[in-house]
């Protein structure tokens, strides 16, 4: 019986009047027991004087593994002041909070959040032994706050039934899910604020080692999938995740509208335990799942979880992705969505299999559906990376307007003056139409258009890439623009105008690509 832990209750007040009697009582309880550890349960202890503290020290001398639990705040203060909290484990007593009849206002990966009164909410953790999780969340929430992300930090740990909870102050707050469910006309406002916060998170650099790397987690998912996908598809998935570069910017990890609160006109995050660093595509994958993926087969899931319809979720996702990418270009939005879906389906398939999904008919059906979608995506998508400044499309004249609109969005975002916009428009038209005529004719091939705006001096550069026949449009001699109307030939005028309207036009043929760059100072 040498490994026994013995628990002894301390009651009422312990002072010089009764310290000796208490010590005697403890020693008698230890007599004949080969205790290796001792737990002093202070649930009913109201006060302890220095005489009482000396008793505890003497007990600790005989059994060094001693901890005091359920300490009320008055006693804790004494133990803290006298340095006892440094010498031994002292656990505070947890206030008991009931959530019966309380409104659920949020739900995250590790717990559910309830409003307990007008000013306070409690996050009840799923894991019964959650003290470590709570500590972790407090630490990452503090880190986020220091790095400039508005978030609520818990001020108390409580007991809720058999689980632990952490209490936050949250006044007059309403989750974005609730706003979307009850005030549909605020959709666009919600999208704007939601994306503003998301961009803020993604532009926050996290000091090395402070947060886990999401890529490691996704690599685990991809590794898991190797046994559940055809070999080639599995390998491709793995290679695509491996090719995502390390990124030290913050990602939230569970960024859906129940975790975003509006408190007195301030947007605030409330669920921070999934905070990590990584490439934004990993974040977009989890957002896709929250609004679309998990509910794709059963639309009632999102209604139950978020309180709004599947259609509302789809619309919110689509608008948010468009705003995040800064484009209305459907091709671009779809491209990034497809990349997000690859990670999203990977995650859901793994989750379902680990929850014994293969053993039920329902589970097999969802796994089969997600796997089919995933395999189709792996067939057409070659990288998880995306560049919001780049558009790839067929080099055909019908796509000219789309190219112009895409470039126009970037120019507008850069406050480009109207005149320069028009000049760039003329040049872009000449170059793109040129590619549609010469690069692949009579076949059809792809062209990539990249827009980059740089400061100091403010300038824009537009790059056209195609894999067609090598063709240098600048090689042609300039037309004679002094000829009369009758002698005029229209050929070559487009390129001539382009050269005149731009500050620089450069062509090169490299790695099997025609590369033409337009530069314009704004």
């Amino acid at each position, binding site marked *: 019986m040498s490994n026994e832990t013995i628990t002894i209750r301390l009651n009422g007040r312990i002072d010089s009047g009764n310290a000796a009697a208490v010590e005697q009582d403890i020693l008698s309880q230890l007599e004949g027991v080969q205790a290796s550890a001792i737990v002093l349960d202070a649930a009913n202890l109201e006060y302890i004087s220095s005489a009482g503290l000396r008793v505890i020290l003497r007990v600790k001398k005989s059994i060094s593994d001693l901890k005091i639990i359920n300490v009320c705040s008055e006693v804790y203060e004494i133990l803290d002041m006298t340095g006892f909290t440094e010498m031994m484990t002292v656990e505070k007593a947890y206030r008991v909070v009931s959530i019966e009849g309380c409104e659920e206002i949020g739900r995250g990966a590790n717990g559910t959040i309830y409003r307990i009164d007008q000013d306070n909410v409690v996050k009840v953790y799923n894991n019964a032994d959650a003290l470590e999780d709570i500590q972790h969340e407090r630490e990452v929430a503090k880190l986020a706050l220091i790095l400039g992300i508005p978030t609520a930090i818990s001020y108390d740990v409580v007991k809720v039934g058999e689980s632990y909870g952490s209490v936050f102050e949250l006044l007059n707050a309403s989750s974005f899910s609730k706003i979307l469910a009850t005030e549909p006309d605020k959709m666009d406002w919600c999208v704007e604020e939601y994306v503003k916060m998301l961009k803020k998170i993604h532009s926050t650099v996290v000091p090395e080692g402070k947060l886990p790397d999401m890529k490691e987690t996704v690599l685990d998912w991809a590794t898991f999938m190797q046994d559940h996908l055809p070999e080639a598809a599995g390998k491709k998935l793995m290679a695509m995740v491996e090719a995502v570069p390390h990124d030290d910017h913050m990602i939230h990890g569970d960024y859906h509208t129940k975790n975003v609160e509006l408190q007195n006109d301030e947007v605030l995050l409330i669920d921070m335990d999934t905070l990590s660093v990584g490439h934004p595509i990993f974040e977009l994958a989890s957002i896709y799942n929250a609004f679309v993926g998990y509910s794709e087969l059963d639309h009632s899931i999102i209604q139950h979880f978020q309180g709004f319809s599947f259609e509302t979720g789809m619309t919110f996702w689509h608008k948010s992705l468009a705003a995040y990418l800064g484009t209305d270009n459907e091709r671009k939005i779809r491209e990034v969505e497809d990349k997000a879906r690859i990670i999203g389906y990977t995650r859901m398939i793994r989750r379902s299999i680990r929850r014994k999904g293969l053993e039920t008919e329902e589970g097999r059906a969802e796994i089969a559906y997600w796997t089919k979608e995933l395999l189709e995506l792996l067939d057409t998508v070659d990288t998880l990376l995306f560049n919001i400044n780049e558009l790839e499309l067929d080099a055909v*004249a019908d796509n000219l307007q789309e190219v112009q609109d895409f470039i126009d969005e970037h120019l507008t975002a850069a406050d480009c003056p109207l005149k320069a916009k028009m000049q760039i*428009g003329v040049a872009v*038209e*000449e170059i793109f139409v040129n590619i549609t005529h010469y690069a692949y004719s009579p076949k059809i091939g792809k062209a990539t258009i990249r827009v980059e705006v740089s400061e100091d001096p403010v300038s824009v550069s537009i790059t056209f890439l195609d894999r067609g026949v090598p063709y240098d449009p600048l090689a042609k001699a300039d037309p004679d623009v*002094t000829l009369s109307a009758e002698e005029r030939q229209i050929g070559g005028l487009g390129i*001539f*105008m382009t050269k005149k309207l731009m500050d620089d036009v450069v062509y090169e043929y490299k790695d099997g690509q025609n590369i033409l760059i337009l530069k314009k100072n704004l």
Partner: protein
Amino acid sequence: MLNIKKEQQGEAAIVSLEGHLDTNTARELEEELKDVLLQTTSLTLDFEKLEYVSSAGLRVLLSAHKIMSGKGEMKLVHVSEAVMEIFDITGFSDVLNIE
């Protein structure tokens, strides 16, 4: 997008353009000008609301100019600064009648 408005007054015609005269809309203008070019000896193109002209647009303007100069005249009015720059660069300001 190009809006084309035509007004015929006897032998004279006024065609007002609004929007972009580019690769896609140049064809529309060419179509719209066909009958005007047949019936008119004096053609005025009002560019007040025209924001943009590309080389495809210049091609249509040049061929219209060639047809009109054989039997009358074609002139451009209310040309914006931005469009005028295109005409200047390409020498079109010396070829076309611009008021």
